[in-house]
């Protein structure tokens, strides 16, 4: 069975094992390696992408569930220049090792699309791990991006 969906606006067809998690499709087949593997169980959020605008953990999302969906990855976020969230991440110097940050940025983008003026409690709802402990700067970057996006 062929599964059709889009990744960053590009039409994709997949005829392989439908059980394959989107994460490994993106990394090994679409060669979009910005989305990272961290746990394979939907626990850490390193693999967060947007599916039809919602933040989803791609390591537990089989490709078979994607028929007709629009997937957006970190590579497609700032397709025409950097997205406000990406700029805020640079401005606040969030990254240490940087490995989780694509997932954090996608999670923050989904949050800001839903809540343009998030409270600290709204930000608490992001459960992506940062093993380096950049949480304080992530909060600052989300606040900065929210200000930018309102302009």
């Amino acid at each position, binding site marked *: 069975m062929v599964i059709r969906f889009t990744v960053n606006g590009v039409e994709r067809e997949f005829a392989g094992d439908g059980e394959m998690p989107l994460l490994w499709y993106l990394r090994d087949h679409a060669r979009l390696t*910005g989305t990272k593997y*961290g*746990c394979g169980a939907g626990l850490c959020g390193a693999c967060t992408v947007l599916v039809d605008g919602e933040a989803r953990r791609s390591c537990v999302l089989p490709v078979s569930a994607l028929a007709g969906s629009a997937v957006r990855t970190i*590579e497609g976020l700032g397709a025409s220049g*950097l997205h406000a969230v990406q700029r805020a991440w640079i401005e606040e110097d969030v990254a240490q*090792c940087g490995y*989780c940050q694509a997932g954090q940025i996608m999670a923050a983008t989904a949050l800001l699309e839903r809540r343009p003026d998030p409270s600290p409690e709204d930000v608490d709802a992001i459960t992506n791990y940062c093993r*380096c402990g950049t*949480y*304080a700067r992530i909060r600052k970057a989300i606040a900065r991006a929210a200000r930018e996006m309102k302009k």
Partner: protein
Amino acid sequence: MSAPALAVSRRAFLQSSLTASGGLLLTPMFAPAALAQDAAAPPNPLGINLRIEPDNRVIIGSPSPEIGQGVKTSVPMIIAEELDADWSQVTVEQLPLGIDFSGAAPRWMYGPQGAGGSTSIPDAWAELRQIGAQARSLMRRAAAARWGIAPDAVATRDGQALHPDGRRLAYGELAAEAAALALPPDPVPLKPRSEYRVIGRPRRVVDAGDIVTGRARYGIDVQEPGACTAVMARCPYFDGDIASYDDTAARAVPGVRAVVVVPGPKPGEPLTANLATGIAVVADDTWSALKGREALKVEWTRGPWAAESSAALDAQCAELLSRTGQVVHDAGDFAAAREAAARVVSARYRVPFVSHAPLEPENCFVHVMADRARVIGPLQQPAGAQRVVHLVTGIPRPAISVEMTRSGGGFGRKLTNDFVAEAALISKATGLPIKLQWTRADDLQHDFYRPFGHHELVAALDAAGSVTGWTHRLASASKYYRRANVKPEDLWGPELYPDDFPARLVPHYRLEWHAVTSGIPRGSWRAPAHTANAFVVQSFLDEVALATGRDPLALRLAMLGDDREFDYAQHGGPKFHTGRLRAVLERVASAIGWGRKLPRGRGIGLAAHFTFGGYAAHAIEVEVSPRGELAFRRVVCAIDCGQPVNPLGIEAQMQGGTIDGLSTALNLEITIQDGRVRESNFDGYPLATMAQMPRDVEVIIVDSAEAPSGCGEMGIPTAAPALMNAIHAACGVRIRNLPVRDQLRAALVRAT
């Protein structure tokens, strides 16, 4: 760390030449073989420390692996400072491993290349400033020749040479002429601190643009032509083996190319080559390899440690501490001090095994060919990677190239190159270029864990409440347990640092150690033994103070006494200054308002510690509800790491170290049952999320002219004891057994 003893050539270690595009190139004296083979090729951007192009770009090679400690930003800042470069024109490239084997002894070509022990900055400070300074001297001489004036009359600033009459020449315009000049024969003078324009100013992570767009390359992102992905099933039992296996179903999974046995170390062999016996499934992509591994049928033998469990280890520690152990340090006469004491205070603490859990699980690309090999991966100790590939393939080290990608965290895990050895064994067995990928379960179950131990502290106090005697008795599972060259009587070395506080500050001071027998692999976890020892010592200080009705800050200041300098023989020495430790403690105490009256349920805790040359302190204010719910109200830390190189990076490391310390102390433990690790993913090993952590971590950076230390490990040791002291101040519950988990709730609900 077991890095080979490599010397850096201190004299004339640079050579200058012209780049293909007419720029200046400063390279180490020993050109990498790959460059020498094809002189006509354009300069490989790797293998070069410093390049100045005609378009004014300054390209600086970064020798140390970047694992999130920010060294790819901070080390080039040091070179750029001495060069007087314009930081906005600087780009940084990661250097590969550079060891020159042509001489009698191997030499580092670019200086030491490891990420461990917070050494990159101190090493760079000692060695790499000269590179920038020599390049600047070439620029001044080239400009002087152009203008017909003396080199001394040429000033430099922001990538330009300045004539006294106001004329300017950009470095790029001078690069070709500078390349024709001879390098100064002797080290050139370095800048005075008052003239710094790059060092000490906040600089953002140089790779930030690549990181936020997903372009940054980690080990997991390496995609070499023809490479297959390998995933392994490893024996979960410590030192267990394969009893039998059936790979029929695994081989039938579409995409699976091969199944190979990867032998573990032989009995008695140090666990340096690889960690556990296993079976590798090699496939066209990761998903096929994972499915193939799932289809493998393996029976394991349980090995010699099948009876080991966390409960049995606790019982072993209790039994050991009931006896006298190996006295490893004995100043004065503790027994007499105890005899004469007006008051004796003692307490026992427990520090669990914990896992490094870098968010990027171990992985490595290795291609073993007939007479050479390539290694590309997220490495903390690339020289060690080269050595293990040599050990398991027999290929001479000069024929093994090693490239470091960014690493998605390390925390000490990637100092051990077991995963590199595995990839090499699989590549050798299959003849294929291999990218080995570990899963999270592999990572949590096959780590080199932070040693576990039980600590007993005893303080003898005189009638005035002064501490006259101090004993620290530790039963722990040494991380040196399988080092062939370490004698049993030296196993305590990485577990207790005899010169740590309060050595020399208490007249009768004794350290005693007991070896715990355990089969679980142990290793270096960020700020190794400091995380355990600062927790117990700084917690115990509060217990001593409160037992005698003293203020915990006042007791610490009284023990530190006047500003003095002591010898410090362990890593981070050679000196320890009591005044620098006192200063960071006073800074955090003042910032958080130590001594102010707090509402019921709130408390402030303090801790200060000297780690690897840096002085750090935490002050934490918490609120504990009657039901035992913990909330952070304020977290302040201070660091004196000598001359601050990149304040933004130091702040990041202190914030991250704080979160690491708090997250680990609150929730994390690796437990053992039936001779194997029980935790297999983040559900059982729950790192803290944003909601569970303080919303901000305030960082005070002490300005200092002392030579810089690193700062990647200084933020952790004091976080846990400051938190435990704050919790006690808030609700009267003393946590002596980590992790905290539900102990607060249990204690408070029981009390009501």
